[in-house]
């Protein structure tokens, strides 16, 4: 531990008031905005500005689920983001391994490309992305309609469609998280000695067997880290759902939140706050788990 209180020999532990004060200030700065969400969500008569609730109530939360489609929004968000996260973990696990172990010519360019990708402002990609997805969706829709009639087709497209369909959103969300996840897994596998795999090769395992039985157990910490980061990032994405979804059955939490804010008549702040809090929770929890991995992951990146 580096202790900068250096004028006494040995490690003096005098209470460092300045450190506490500074950290408290910074923490206060970070925490204050959250108060409103918490308090307003429990306030029967919530306003936009911060006020101590005069009537404490859980009614706002109830209304989220009872009067509005809260449950559906939560389900959609969890389903979509959860699936995307799983997909990312699988693809990044495999891909990261490949990137780490390969000596092929395309390795370096691919790595640079991944870095560069993250540099693009998302608003720039939105229109072309929409065009591609629209094209794919139309092809797919036509194919489906060959086999089934109108209503069933619509129901099926809801799941596998690219526009206004779960599949499309899941795929695109997953794709957006791939660069970082691939980088994390590659760095992770770089740090894993090849001894384990070589022992497995000597034991006669095929690549798939090696991956399944030796590498995955070893890769779990890296996968957990990559998965958590992907989840947090995808959970917060509202641009993509905004663009890709229109039917009410598919709406996710950020959209519900956004729409609640755009109400024509008076905005129901209590409801808004409760919804915001519900939306906030999974991200915070995931972040809590991810903390452990944060320093590890980035130390590896800093060195490499």
């Amino acid at each position, binding site marked *: 531990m580096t202790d900068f209180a250096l004028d006494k020999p040995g490690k003096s532990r005098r209470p460092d008031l300045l450190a506490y004060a500074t950290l408290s200030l910074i923490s206060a700065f970070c925490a204050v905005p959250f*108060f409103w969400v918490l308090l307003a969500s429990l306030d029967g008569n919530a306003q936009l500005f911060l006020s101590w609730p005069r009537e404490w109530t859980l009614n706002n939360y109830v209304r989220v689920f009872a009067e509005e489609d809260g449950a559906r929004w939560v389900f959609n968000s969890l389903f979509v983001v959860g699936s995307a996260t799983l997909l990312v973990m699988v693809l990044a696990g495999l891909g990261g391994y490949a990137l780490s172990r390969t000596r092929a010519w395309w390795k370096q360019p691919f790595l640079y490309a991944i870095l560069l990708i993250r540099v*693009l402002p998302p608003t720039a990609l939105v229109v072309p992305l929409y065009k591609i997805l629209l094209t794919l969706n139309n092809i797919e829709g036509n194919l489906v309609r060959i086999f089934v009639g109108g209503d069933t087709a619509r129901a099926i497209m809801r799941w596998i469609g690219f526009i206004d369909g779960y599949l499309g959103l899941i795929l695109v969300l997953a794709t957006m998280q791939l660069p970082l996840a691939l980088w994390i897994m590659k760095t992770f596998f770089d740090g894993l000695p090849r001894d384990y795999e070589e022992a497995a090769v000597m034991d006669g395992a095929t690549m798939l067997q090696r991956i399944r039985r030796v590498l995955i157990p070893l890769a779990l910490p890296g996968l957990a880290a990559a998965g958590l980061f992907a989840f947090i990032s995808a959970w917060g994405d509202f641009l993509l759902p905004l663009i890709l979804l229109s039917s009410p059955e598919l709406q996710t939490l950020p959209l519900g939140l956004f729409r609640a804010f755009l109400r024509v008549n008076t905005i129901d702040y209590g409801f808004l706050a409760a919804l915001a809090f519900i939306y906030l929770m999974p991200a915070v929890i995931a972040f809590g788990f991810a903390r452990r991995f944060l320093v590890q992951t*980035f130390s590896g990146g800093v060195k490499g």
Partner: protein
Amino acid sequence: MVRSTYEKRVARQLLLILSPSLLLLLAFVIYPAVYSVYLSFTNEALTGAAALNPRFVGLRNYSRLLHDAKFWNSLLVTFFFVVGSAIIGQFVLGLISAILLRRDLAFKQLFSSIILLPNAAPEVVAGFMWISMLAGGENATLSRIVMFFGMTPTDWLQTFPLTMIIVVNTWRGIATAMILLTAGLSTIPSEVYEAARMDGANPSQIFRRITLPLMMPTILLYMLISAVSTIAVFGLVYALTRGGPGGATEVISIYIYNQSFTAFQLGYGAAVAVVALAISLVLGIAYVRAMKVQV
């Protein structure tokens, strides 16, 4: 480079398991990006004469850019935004937090958890929280705090829009800075600090001549990552100010948005996006150069 059939087979297998990721990235990221570049050379739009008949117009969009006052304004705003929040705000607060949290203090877990919280909040929620903090004149939370200290409040987002978005983005990004800088700090062995103590260095000298130089690679990496991701920030600023008042907070991502989705000038919007991409690339190259000098 003669490679055995075994090695070739292994290389093929590795390529195989990488291919799904490759496919997705190609389809949903690379292709749209390339298409965007193509778009920037057309006059594609959703309304107006060109809507029905988009044509290839070469560099006309770009020359239009150069004479567009709003474009330059947007660049300037983005510059201040990036420097203020990423380069200065997040970095300083993140560095202070990283250093202080390495000491033996009580409540360390609590402090670091709270400081990480803003980063965990999804963009939309972060936007709302700060609207509550800043909008509404006297009722805004910030106004109440300021009045507590005896100063006069104002409509923050109207009077100090750029400052406010810098503050909000700083708030959001302290966590990233702190994490990266903590990782960097931990690469310095503690015996080096002890040797410096024995050599007679005081805390300020240790910081300037040992900590900072040894942390340079991490600091540079942080600067690059944060600058680039700050250029891409959209939702947070849009929720707070929509780019106003009068373009005072129209960062480049919002300018692109306005051009593409409000003015429906897709070709022109794409051109601006390409410029933003080019700037990010320049930063990336600058980083690589700086790193070479380091080592």
